[in-house]
């Protein structure tokens, strides 16, 4: 008998406790207007995505922004002058994507906080069809194994988020026209280099 009463009181206690905890969480959420972070969608393949391509010494943003009061007005910036917004700039300003309170995060239109490592959730809220194609491996560059581990890239690896249009590239040299081909003896003359190698080298230098 005693044990039954004990059990009931325990379970009542448990229920009360869980209710209390829920209440606490709810009030906390209301107070800090906290929303759960973006839940990883199941259809994002578990492939390796390299870290975001930050400019040198720019991250974490909070290093400077922790002491700056967020200013949402559209204005000439005194810092980040290198950033020119050409991405639906008439409808958008910095804090529509960057989270005002914790600048190390991005923020979707619904208020979800998104890390820079998962910035595709931010881009995907407007570019839904592209996001779908990207997840399927059809939009964007894939490298690695066709039947194994594939390397994905973030949207920002190819598109500057502030000016997403793909930048024109210098083409590699055109093929030699048949009329310009000359017969050379196989032992004479310099063999031309593959022009790709110099480009890869300069890109590597640029990346460093």
């Amino acid at each position, binding site marked *: 008998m005693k044990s039954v009463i004990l059990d009931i009181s325990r379970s009542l206690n448990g229920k009360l406790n869980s209710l209390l905890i829920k209440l606490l969480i709810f009030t906390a959420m209301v107070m800090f207007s906290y929303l759960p972070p973006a839940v990883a969608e199941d259809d994002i393949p578990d492939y390796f995505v390299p870290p975001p391509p930050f400019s040198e010494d720019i991250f974490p943003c909070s290093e400077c922004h922790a002491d700056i009061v967020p200013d949402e007005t559209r204005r000439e910036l005194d810092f980040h002058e290198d950033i020119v917004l050409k991405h639906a700039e008439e409808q958008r300003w910095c804090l529509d994507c960057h989270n005002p309170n914790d600048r190390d995060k991005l923020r979707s239109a619904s208020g979800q906080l998104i890390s820079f490592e998962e910035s595709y959730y931010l881009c995907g809220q407007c570019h839904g069809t592209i996001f779908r194609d990207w997840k399927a491996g059809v939009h964007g560059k894939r490298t690695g194994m066709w039947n194994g581990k594939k390397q994905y890239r973030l949207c920002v690896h190819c598109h500057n988020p502030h000016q997403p249009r793909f930048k024109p590239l210098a*083409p590699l040299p055109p093929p030699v026209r048949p009329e310009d081909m000359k017969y050379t003896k196989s032992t004479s003359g310099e063999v031309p280099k593959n022009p790709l190698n110099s480009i890869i080298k300069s890109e590597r230098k640029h990346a460093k």
Partner: protein
Amino acid sequence: MPNKSNKDNCARTINRRSFLKGTALGLGSLAVPFGTSDASTWEAFFQKHFKEMNESELQSVITRLEEEYAREYDMNFNIKATGPIPGVKFGYGLDVSRCIGCRRCVYACVQENNQSREPQIHWISVLEFEKGEKWVNIFEEATKYYNPHAVPEEGHFYMPIQCQQCENPPCVKVCPTKATWQERDGITVVDYNWCIGCRYCMAACPYGARHFNWAKPRIKKKEINTEVHYLGNRPRYKGVVEKCTFCIQRTRENPGRYPACVEICPVGARKFGNLLDPESEIRYCIEHKRVFRLKEDLNTSPKFYYFFAT
């Protein structure tokens, strides 16, 4: 009387049959490389057709080739002869709406597949079209020699063309020596030791995808790729035909890398995968995008799909 004098004039009598026999033997012996005492020349001369060789015969051919290449290029080659993966049929997708015509694919292919730098051979040709021109089957107004400072050029679009890996390849039909054939994974290959250089296949190919080694291929030693496949990127001889093999030396592995042109493309316009796998990227393209194949009216049934992602 005149008969007798005729017989006297001849030093030896010879009848028609033995004359023909002798001529045939004599001419036949001319084809045998007597001048060279090299054993490997003899082995090459009596090499069997690739598909008729058993594993040990193939291995000895590969060892012989590795020795030949080592002597000729002063480098150690690793020649593979990996067979097709069961349940795989390769397909390729190219997004015409994304290609910017930068030709990175052309030279990545040259690098990976040991194409001759001089005389120049490119397996990929990137065509530039003016917007509004007739185009899909008509290439007369296109150019592959465009050379602006930056691409894409205003008012133009680009379409790279390489071997379309036809399901019904006309090049294979015309080969008189069966030196080119279609493998089970759908790749059409050439055995450079079997090709006699008649170039019938080049005439038969409606895509201009086959190329002929008019001279001995020349490559800078530093740029030679020594990881090669017997049916793919191993160094070619003068007088043989070559073509794209979907990077057989990379893709026929498990796991296998993407072809070099897919890997280099800066805009991600090139897609590659297994047509028999419903989850593959290429199947997604075919099922969800607007797709066309080149010169479909010729019934070659290419496994190279051009598509528009936007």
